[in-house]
C-alpha cells in the first residue's frame, strides 16, 4: 500500500537525519543490530536506562555546580559517567559536550562548567525528544495507518490514499 511505503520512507529518512545531524553515531547502529525477535525491545530498554541514568547525573551536576565550594573532582566523575553512558548508546552530541565539560573541570573553570552543563542539558533534551518520537512511530506506525485509513473512509468515503493519506499521517506524526 502506498501509505505504508511512504510511512516507511519517512521513518527511514527521519532515522537517517538523526545520524546526519550528529545526534547519533555508529554505536546506535550496533544496538539496533543486537535487536531481534528474541529481544524485540532491546533498543528501547537500553535507551530508557540511559535516560534514567542521564537525568540522575544531570541533577547531580546541577547540585554540584550550585555549591559554594565546588568539588571539581566529584563533578568530573559525574561528567565521566555521563560521557561513558552517552557513548554506549551512540548519543554523539552529548558525548562531545562532555569532553569539553571535562576540560573545564580539569581547569576548575566554573564559567566553562556552567556553560557546558547548559549545553549538555540542551543536547540531552533534544536527543531524548527525537528518540522518543522515533520509538513512538516505530511502535505505532502500522496501527496509525489502519486508524487513519478507517477515519478517512468514514469521513470521505472510498478515496485515493496516495497524497491525502500521507499528508494526514505527516501531521499526526
Amino acid at each position, binding site marked *: 500500500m502506498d501509505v505504508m511505503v511512504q510511512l516507511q520512507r519517512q521513518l527511514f529518512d527521519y532515522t537517517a537525519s538523526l545520524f546526519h545531524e550528529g545526534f547519533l553515531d555508529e554505536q546506535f547502529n*550496533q544496538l539496533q*543490530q*543486537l535487536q531481534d525477535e528474541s529481544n524485540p525491545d532491546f533498543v528501547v530498554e*537500553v535507551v530508557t536506562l540511559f535516560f534514567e541514568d542521564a537525568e540522575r547525573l544531570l541533577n547531580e551536576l546541577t547540585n554540584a555546580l550550585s555549591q559554594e565550594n565546588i568539588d571539581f573532582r566529584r563533578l568530573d566523575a559525574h561528567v565521566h559517567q555521563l560521557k561513558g553512558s552517552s557513548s*554506549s548508546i551512540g548519543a554523539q552530541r552529548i558525548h562531545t559536550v562532555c569532553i569539553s565539560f571535562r576540560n573545564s573541570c580539569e581547569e576548575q573553570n566554573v564559567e566553562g562548567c556552567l556553560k557546558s552543563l547548559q549545553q549538555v542539558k540542551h543536547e540531552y533534551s533534544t536527543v531524548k525528544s527525537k528518540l522518543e518520537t522515533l520509538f513512538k512511530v516505530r511502535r505505532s506506525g502500522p496501527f496509525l495507518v489502519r486508524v487513519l485509513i478507517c477515519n478517512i473512509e468514514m469521513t470521505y468515503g472510498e478515496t485515493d490514499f496516495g497524497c491525502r493519506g500521507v499528508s494526514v499521517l505527516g501531521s499526526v506524526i
Partner: protein
Amino acid sequence: MRSHHLTALVVDDDTMVRMIHQRMLNSVGVENEAVQNGKEAIDIHHSGQTFDLILMDIDMPVMNGIEATKKLRSMGIHSIIAGVSARTIDENTQEFIEAGLDAYLEKPLNISKITSIIHKINKL
C-alpha cells in the same frame, strides 16, 4: 562468528552496560553471566564457577576492577581478563594492566572488539 562453549563474566556496576555487553556476548554465542562489582566477581569464583573470559570494568563500588583483577590472579584464575573502561589507555590505566589484564578495551564495546577477544581465546 559462533563461539561454541565459551563462557564469559561481565563485571560492571552500570545496569545498561551489563545489558549491552551481555547481549553482545549472546549474539556471538558466548554464554555469560553478570555481576555488579569486583567483590561479586570474586564471590562467583569462590562458588566454583570459572569463565573463559572476564570483561572487567575499572571503576566500581565495593571493589574496583584493579583490586578484583589482582585478587583473581592471586587465586590462580587464568581466565582471559579484559579491562573495559571509558578511559583512554594511558598512565592512569597502567595500574589496571599491571594488575593482570590480558587486554584492555576502551568503551563503548562493539561486536568487532568482542570478536577480537574471542579470537584471542580461540587461539589459546
